[in-house]
């Protein structure tokens, strides 16, 4: 079985990702317990708080996880000098996961304590217990089974949701899932999904056993148990605090990338070049979805990543598309300097434009060469476009208008899924990337943009002005990459990763060595 072989061959990495996953789940659930249990108890004491607090927790659970991540990234919430929430990475993911975990914990604490037999409560009060004594010696121990049931639900939800945390570079088994989607690789998707499901089952089983031991049959509330759990939570929090301190201390450059293969290869190329030429240690913060890389650059979470001129012009600066490549570059360079204090360095040398793709057999049968050729067939065709293409101002809407196209159906799906959908005949036309290695592998044909609708998308490293000023070697390292990558080279590297299943790190290193860009001393 392929999955088994993959897992066996990558067991160290699978183990590492599982640990990261458990870390995200453990810390976030721990925080949710520390907040949710006292809140649930407070609700039993002041029922008037119930509506607003449960309402808030309810709303949090309905917010889609990617949206919640997006909302938390620009925040800057500090406790002393430690950034608790905001930015990309584990901290923000943990904050989001903790928000999700709150509802079941608050609700079960509340119902668990309210569910204690009123006669027992009255007896306790009648014996002269203070409210605190009644709570800690009687109500909480008796409600513990129900509270643990809430923690169990919260944990299982967190194991699932944490896979999405890979979208903001928080690590975990989601990395395999996202990578698998991107590379059109079922084995890789399963390599993330199966261990995640096993973790969820294990957590469910383990907490189920704990719940049972505290449940209705519970003979005795063991104080040492409670201290052990509390101790574990505090230790986990201490680790995250230490990690936060540590990451702020060392001199380093963080290189970012968006969440597709080419970007990860380019991220590696930047990272290895910088490492080789500056000696500064590089932190890789890859796989940032949507505009997260841009947000992270502005927030100072990363110092540099590769952006495309056309994307910056229309999707980030919200300016109308232009067709002249030099003009676009000049425009984004001056706007970025003014608006964001970010510097566009020199172009890498290739243009990754949108590629309108059809199946090779269809192209041959219908004699399709240019986009204009498809106008006749479009009303019968189903189109499959990535979210990005559908929503961008230089995307679907203008494209359809420019060529006068009306499709029978437009299906919005993950970009990586569109290739497979096209190859399988589920859709008839997609918008991919011109440098995509899958184009050749799946036998797809790129139609010529004969009306020059798509603006140029020259790949250029964009860096923080402040960092370039502080680390002059960084500018020199980036300058070495000027014009270094042709579109063919980029397509080959993409195919090496997507088609030949090689590691982006190795492909980048091989390229840099062949071009004598690193290792020259």
């Amino acid at each position: 079985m392929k999955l088994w072989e993959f897992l066996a061959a990558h067991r160290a990495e699978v183990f590492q990702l599982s640990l990261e996953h458990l870390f995200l789940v453990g810390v976030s659930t721990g925080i949710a317990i520390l907040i949710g249990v006292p809140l649930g108890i407070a609700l039993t004491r002041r029922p008037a708080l119930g509506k607003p607090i449960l309402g808030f927790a309810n709303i949090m659970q309905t917010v889609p996880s990617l949206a919640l991540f997006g909302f938390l990234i620009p925040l800057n919430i500090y406790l002393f000098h430690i950034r608790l929430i905001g930015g990309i990475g584990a901290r923000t993911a943990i904050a989001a996961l903790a928000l999700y975990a709150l509802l079941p914990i608050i609700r079960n604490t509340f119902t668990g304590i309210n569910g204690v037999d009123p006669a027992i409560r009255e007896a306790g009060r009648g014996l002269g217990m203070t409210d605190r004594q009644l709570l800690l010696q009687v109500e909480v121990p008796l409600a513990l089974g129900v509270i643990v049931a809430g923690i169990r639900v919260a944990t299982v939800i967190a194991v699932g949701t944490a896979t999405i945390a890979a979208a903001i570079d928080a690590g975990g088994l989601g990395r395999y899932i996202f990578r698998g989607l991107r590379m059109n690789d079922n084995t890789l998707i399963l390599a993330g999904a199966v261990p995640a499901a096993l973790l969820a089952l294990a957590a469910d089983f383990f907490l189920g056993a704990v719940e049972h031991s505290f449940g209705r049959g519970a003979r005795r509330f063991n104080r040492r148990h409670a201290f052990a759990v509390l101790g574990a939570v505090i230790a986990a929090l201490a680790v995250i605090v230490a990690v936060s301190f540590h990451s702020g201390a060392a001199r380093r450059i963080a290189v970012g990338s968006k969440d597709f293969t080419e970007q990860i290869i380019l991220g590696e190329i930047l990272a290895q070049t910088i490492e080789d030429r500056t000696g500064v240690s590089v932190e890789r913060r890859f796989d940032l979805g949507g505009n997260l890389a841009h947000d992270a650059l502005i927030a100072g979470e990363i110092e540099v990543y590769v952006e495309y001129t056309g994307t910056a012009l229309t999707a980030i600066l919200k300016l109308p598309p232009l067709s002249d490549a030099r003009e676009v570059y000049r425009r984004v360079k001056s706007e970025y300097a003014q608006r964001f204090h970010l510097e566009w360095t020199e172009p890498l040398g290739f243009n990754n434009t949108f590629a309108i793709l059809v199946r090779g057999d269809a192209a041959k049968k219908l004699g399709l060469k240019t986009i204009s050729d498809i106008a006749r067939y479009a009303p019968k065709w189903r189109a499959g476009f990535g979210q990005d293409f559908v929503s961008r101002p230089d995307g679907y809407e203008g494209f359809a208008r420019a060529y006068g196209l009306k499709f029978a159906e437009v299906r919005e799906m993950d970009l990586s899924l569109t290739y497979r959908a096209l190859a399988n005949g589920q859709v008839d036309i997609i918008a991919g990337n011109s440098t995509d290695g899958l184009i050749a592998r799946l036998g797809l044909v790129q139609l010529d943009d004969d009306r020059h609708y798509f603006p140029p998308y020259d790949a250029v490293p964009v860096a923080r002005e402040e960092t370039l000023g502080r680390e002059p070697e960084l500018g020199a390292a980036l300058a070495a990459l000027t014009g270094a990558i042709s579109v063919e080279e980029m397509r080959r590297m993409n195919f090496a990763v997507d088609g030949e299943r090689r590691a982006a790190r190795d492909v980048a290193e091989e390229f840099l060595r062949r071009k004598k860009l690193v290792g020259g001393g």
Partner: protein
Amino acid sequence: MNGKSTAIEFQSAGFRLPDGRALLSALDLTVERGETLVLLGRSGSGKTTTLKLVNRLLDPTDGRVLVEDRPTTEWDAIRLRRRIGYVIQEVGLFPHFTIEENVAVVPRLEGWDSERTTARVRELLDLVGLDPDRFASRYPHELSGGQRQRVGVARALAADPPILLLDEPFGALDPITRREIQGEFRALQRRLGKTMVFVTHDVGEAFLLASRIALLKDGRIVLLGRPADFLASRDPEVAAFVSCLRGADEAAAAP
């Protein structure tokens, strides 16, 4: 003053719900030290409310209640409750505590050392007729209803409170067990000489245990007197209760 001191005194005490409904109106009643006052009445007549006014589980909305000559509202509620033993029908034993731990609740809250606590628990279990060696380390669910109720009494007595409140303590027991435990309780009562307020709707139990009986109806006292006064009364509510007693005797006397 006749030299006997008063343990509990209700002075025009009343209790009204927030919606204005009166559960108890203008109650005047004294409980002498060492006597057992039985509050008798139908469900909803205000017996339990009266009891809860004594240990401040409720505060009177009208008038006042004095315990050891101090209004309850001037007592610290926690201190007051630890001076008053409290036994309820549902017993309310803590299911996650052993019998020993249940009886030791108040001594532990009062900070007794473990040696003294253990000795006291054994003494009390003996007193209520449970062998400490057999029962101390068991859990409430392992006991019968009658045994649980004995533990409830032992728990209420743990810190040797001068006053004991009992709210239908034997109401949930089967008739045979109830008879037995009533008899034992009567012996215990004589031996301890505590001030007791005992709520019941069982007129037989009232006659067995009471120094005096207060019959309540709709939150007011219908009759307050010794059992003998009770039999002589012509009040229809009293007569209804007394007929229960006679009915039971006649049924018992029938072949």
